[in-house]
């Protein structure tokens, strides 16, 4: 990254500012949609979708994941798999629980 010239960095800064604007708008949007009269499933879906878009913007642009080396991408894919296992554990409990009662 040390061979970046100033013009290159200026270009990056424009991208960062756009991402910053998008994050601010999405924050207000997620608060806005939380007042909509929708079912709780729809509300969860909407909130998590917006949060995932925001997180992708932060990870992709602020943390440079889009242009980052494959080593890190694979490391994160592996971590994400275990994260999903974590998320599924309560669901498994729920299925079990429902069948018993």
């Amino acid at each position: 990254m040390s061979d970046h010239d100033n013009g290159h960095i200026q270009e990056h800064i424009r991208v960062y500012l756009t991402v910053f604007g998008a994050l601010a708008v999405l924050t207000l949007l997620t608060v806005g949609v939380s007042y909509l009269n929708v079912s709780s499933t729809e509300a969860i879906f909407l909130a998590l979708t917006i949060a995932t878009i925001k997180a992708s913007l932060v990870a992709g642009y602020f943390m440079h994941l889009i242009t980052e080396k494959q080593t890190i991408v694979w490391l994160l894919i592996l971590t994400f798999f275990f994260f999903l296992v974590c998320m599924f554990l309560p669901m498994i409990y729920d299925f079990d629980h429902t069948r018993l009662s």
Partner: protein
Amino acid sequence: MQIPYITEERPDTGLTNSKLGIWVFLASEIMLFGGLFSAYVFLRIAAPEGDFAYWGSKLNIPMATINTLVLISSSMTMIMSWASLKMKDFEKYKMYMGLTLLFASIFLVIKYFEYTGKFHHGIYPSSSTFMGIYFTLTGLHMLHIIGGMIVMGYFWLPFGNKMWTTEPERFTNRIEIAGLYWHFVDLVWIFLFPILYLL
């Protein structure tokens, strides 16, 4: 002893050791918060109907919205401090790093008022399952903010930033690595905000 591959990339990984190191650390952080997010889902599923929504409605959405915007702004100033070093502008670096610390402090002050507001109304972690997981998740996140501030404060103050004059490239990488951590803390809040305050 010289630490190897700090400014030049290691041939087999294609990364500096510091960058690989911070990402492995962040992966472990994903699992730390992942376990607690999992606990949140578990507790929410098992809670009586409407219990989480009832206790969640006691939280202050405007304060948390401002705090979300404050954290996003701090991520922006953090990346600007790194970009300033890339452009060899040390004065701008100090300004943006100072702003990042200021935003982090504002976040803590707002969080302080939120917490004490709850305590004044007799709401504690023991008040309900929701409040238990709320204080655990936001408390752990707050500790991460404080940890980040200690590191960033060190790089901001003269005894921490003097490396800029001796090894500018190494110092720039340090700020990039600190930034990766800081953006991660921002990223965790992006999920905490809707699941605790809005759902």
